[in-house]
């Protein structure tokens, strides 16, 4: 007793430095008083426990979650609502079992789905045509279910045909007896002709399935529900890839439904070892992710790592691979993508065959392939579809484009501002003559043009298609003619900016192209400070950072640095018959991709270099 007198549990006192919270509390004290009663009535299902559940005595101070503050005024004002939400979360998180009574279940589910405010959930009471009839209820979300399917495979059999199939208390299991199991089983096996039927025992299972477009059948007297496949939402059909177009090769792109996307890959890879595992990422709006890999090729450690990273994401809502990417990549602060994002099923299939792992996100037509190396980001699927000399040539052009996009404006500044003696005299005279009337230093000139170009590019993406041509006219006039006529920039810079833009368009990966665009400005700044030395120091740091990057444990610059066993398809595109091994850095279960005699139709002793062997 004495210690309670001597010791008083410290209570939280809001600081006066916390953004005027105290004032707001005073101002709203009267208003919040009226809402205190909200949610105070405690019903039979445990909702509305009459106040805040998280009485940690801290009010609106700093929370434990990384210093994110909650507003004490809001908490006080909506205490009842917050308590109700928490109770629902508890039901979901604690996996509370269904009640045997239909009415209780309905009451809880109505609370979970916020009925009557929420108009989408449908609670359809039915009477199963047994003798005597059995009360039941269907639960589904209007708009994302296939109503025809529901009518023909659920309502009709249950209400009209169950007697014919001898299901009921007389002929089958009696409700409330020890043979409950038989009744549910009989309904599943004999009455419901849905292609996928399963059972659920908790509210969380029922709710998640209903949210996915399925229908739940809850029968009075049973503490289980039957879940039936009735997905019927609208989706875009498979169309051409929007970003990764090719001239030769398949013209199919992923769509928004994960099931369709995995099917598109399965259509290419007819392998029983092609595994698709499903993982939910995120808390408030979990994103359904499919992890796809070839079980007999992919390194199990890699698969395990991918699943682990996805499962351990703690975030509200991750609807897009770009968001998931930031959660699972090794070094999110480095402005270089460490995940290959593609919308082409053939590219995913090629990656899976190499031993990579694909991550599909439901609701998005882009699929991630991991691990990803620098060379993956510079390759296009078309490289493989054309003959290898042309493929190699295109890659060289692409590397040239990469170099231009990253370093050409910086080199222009370095040469104009610091090293004019490096260029031949005739060219120097031409450049100097062209810049004679330009009043700005080269750095200003370049920044003006590059920023204008980025502005036009950004506007070009956002502008409605009907007025898109206007942007082209504006851009051409501003960049091409008016700027030169006004002596704001020199004509040579127009060429530099145009070639830089062409270079960046040649980069096949959009994320990578973005990072190059960003880094270009860094190099421009370095060149403006130290000329060529600045660029070289920047390149040195850039390479140093890139070689220490990893993508799911695989060095980003492999197989160049560190040096691993190189195939003929990393820097250049080698002949397809010489690509006998899978990438060494992936450490796949099967290293050999094809036998040494891949062109075995060649006669003995001929075409050794052509994969024919002896």
């Amino acid at each position, binding site marked *: 007793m004495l210690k309670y007198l001597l010791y008083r549990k410290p209570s939280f006192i809001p600081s006066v430095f916390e953004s005027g919270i105290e004032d707001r509390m005073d101002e709203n004290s009267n208003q919040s008083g009226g809402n205190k009663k909200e949610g105070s009535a405690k019903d039979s299902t445990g909702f509305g426990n009459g106040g805040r559940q998280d009485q940690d005595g801290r009010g609106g101070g700093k929370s434990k979650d990384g210093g994110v503050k909650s507003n004490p005024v809001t908490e006080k004002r909506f205490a009842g609502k917050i308590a109700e939400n928490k109770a629902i979360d508890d039901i979901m998180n604690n996996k509370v079992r269904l009640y045997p009574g239909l009415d209780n279940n309905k009451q809880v589910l109505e609370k979970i789905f916020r009925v009557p405010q929420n108009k989408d959930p449908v609670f359809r009471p039915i009477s199963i045509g047994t003798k005597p009839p059995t009360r039941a209820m269907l639960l589904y979300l209007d708009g994302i279910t296939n109503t025809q399917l529901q009518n023909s495979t659920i309502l009709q059999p249950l209400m009209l045909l169950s007697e014919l199939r001898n299901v009921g208390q007389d002929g089958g299991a009696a409700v409330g007896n020890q043979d409950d199991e038989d009744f549910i089983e009989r309904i599943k096996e004999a009455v419901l002709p849905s292609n996928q039927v399963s059972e659920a025992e908790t509210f969380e299972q029922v709710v998640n399935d209903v949210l996915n477009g399925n229908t739940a059948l809850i029968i009075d007297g049973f503490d289980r529900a039957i879940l039936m496949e009735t997905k019927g939402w609208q989706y875009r059909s498979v169309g051409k890839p929007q970003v990764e177009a090719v001239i030769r090769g398949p013209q199919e792109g992923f769509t928004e439904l994960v099931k369709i996307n995995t099917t598109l890959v399965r259509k290419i890879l007819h392998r029983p070892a092609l595994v698709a595992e499903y993982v939910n990422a995120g808390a408030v709006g979990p994103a359904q992710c499919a992890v796809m890999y070839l079980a007999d090729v992919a390194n199990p450690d890699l698969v395990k790592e991918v699943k682990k990273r996805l499962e351990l994401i703690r975030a509200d809502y991750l609807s897009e691979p770009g968001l998931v990417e930031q959660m699972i990549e090794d070094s999110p602060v480095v402005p270089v993508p460490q995940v290959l994002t593609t919308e082409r099923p053939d590219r995913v299939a090629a990656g899976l065959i190499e031993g990579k792992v694909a991550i599909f996100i439901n609701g998005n037509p882009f699929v991630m392939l991991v691990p990803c190396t620098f060379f993956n980001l510079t390759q296009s699927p078309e490289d493989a579809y054309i003959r290898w000399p042309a493929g190699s040539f295109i890659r060289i052009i692409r590397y040239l484009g990469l170099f231009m996009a990253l370093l050409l404006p910086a080199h222009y500044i370095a040469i104009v501002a610091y090293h004019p003696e490096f260029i031949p005299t005739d060219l120097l005279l031409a450049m100097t003559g062209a810049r004679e009337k330009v009043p700005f230093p080269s750095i200003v000139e370049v920044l003006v043009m590059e920023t204008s170009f980025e502005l036009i590019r950004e506007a070009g993406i956002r502008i409605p298609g009907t007025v898109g041509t206007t942007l082209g006219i504006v851009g051409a006039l501003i960049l091409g003619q008016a700027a030169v006529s006004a002596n704001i920039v020199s004509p040579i810079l127009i060429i530099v900016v145009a070639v830089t833009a062409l270079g960046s368009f040649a980069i096949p990966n959009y994320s990578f192209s973005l990072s190059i665009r960003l880094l270009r400005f860094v190099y421009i700044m370095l060149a403006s400070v130290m000329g060529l030395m600045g660029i070289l120091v920047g390149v040195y740091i850039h390479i140093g950072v890139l070689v*220490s990057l990893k993508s799911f444990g695989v060095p980003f610059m492999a197989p160049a640095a560190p040096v691993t066993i190189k195939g003929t398809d990393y820097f250049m595109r080698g002949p397809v018959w010489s690509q006998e091994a899978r990438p060494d850095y992936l450490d796949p279960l099967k290293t050999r991709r094809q036998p040494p005699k891949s062109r075995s139709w060649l006669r003995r002793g001929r075409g050794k270099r052509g994969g024919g062997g002896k």
Partner: protein
Amino acid sequence: MSRFRPVVGASEAITLLFIFISSKVFLTYTVFYYHKGLNASWVIPLITTIAGVVVALLLVALLNRYPGLDLVEIGEELAGPYLNLLFAFFYLALLLLGAGMALRGTSEGVVSGFLTDTPISLVIAFFITGTMVVSYLGLEAVARTARFFVSVLVVTALVLVALTIPLWHWDAFFPLLGPGPLKLLLGSLNFTGDFVQIILLGLICHFLPAGRIRAIGVGGTLIAGFFLFLFTTVPILVYDYPPVTELMLPSFELARIINMGRFGQRMEVLFVPLWVFGNMIFLSISYYAAAVVLTRICKLRDYRPFVLAATVLTAVIAFIPQNVIQAAYWSQLYLGRYSLGMLVAIILLLLLISIFRGKGGGLDEKSN
């Protein structure tokens, strides 16, 4: 020593070693050869390479007796903490002095050749920043950066040499042995320190593939010797003796003399990456190695706090000489003339103690 145990492959290690040893060919250093070897200075790198290989074999013999330990740890095991402290300070001095002089030489070269209006302090700050970042990222980053750039460096160096072929005067070789065999041999002793950077092998040995340290040491030394030979010989062939003794930066002058018609003038710009990247890799290796030595001295596990310390010390050292000539002279005098002898003395002493005490020790089981 660090959060992650780095893994360095054989080719990466050879690259590190040969760039660390041979990057001095891009500075003033080789000019001193010509004063001793006259027109036969090309013999000097051959003799010093042999010396370097011998020292590499001695070092490997010591390292192989204590697998899992580096040179500083072996010194502590064999010579005790106090004497080893002196050894460690010697290693540190080698690395920091070499880095400081190289930093000064490179920066002066940049200022005189490319950025004539830029203060040298800014140039040094840029170099330091770039090299420090890569050193801080660790041995893997340094080794892989070197490996990534090595093809660029080697190809550019060979192109530089190839483009000067029309300017070669073969009669510059004669008299073939210049001042005579004895003077050449004695003169070469002044430059044995070219290969003192072999010490790197002793500091990174436990990150290298087991059983390949000897191949790495000998391979790196021989390749470095080849480039030293090449960049000592070609200026003689192009400029002849004695004009070659007046060159400030022989490799830079080689690039400047290349002329390919009306359009292909001032070709040295194409070879700037060769000098800059070569010396930046040298500096990054130096900082990392110096940080490792400091880590061992302080008996800590993480090298990274010492990278900045090594960088600051290097910058201070770089500004001590009054000019680049003095920096080059000190480099030749203190590093080139005596350093390898002292390193050999330490290695021999440790080997003798090891043989006397018999192989093994408590530290054998200790791995990084």
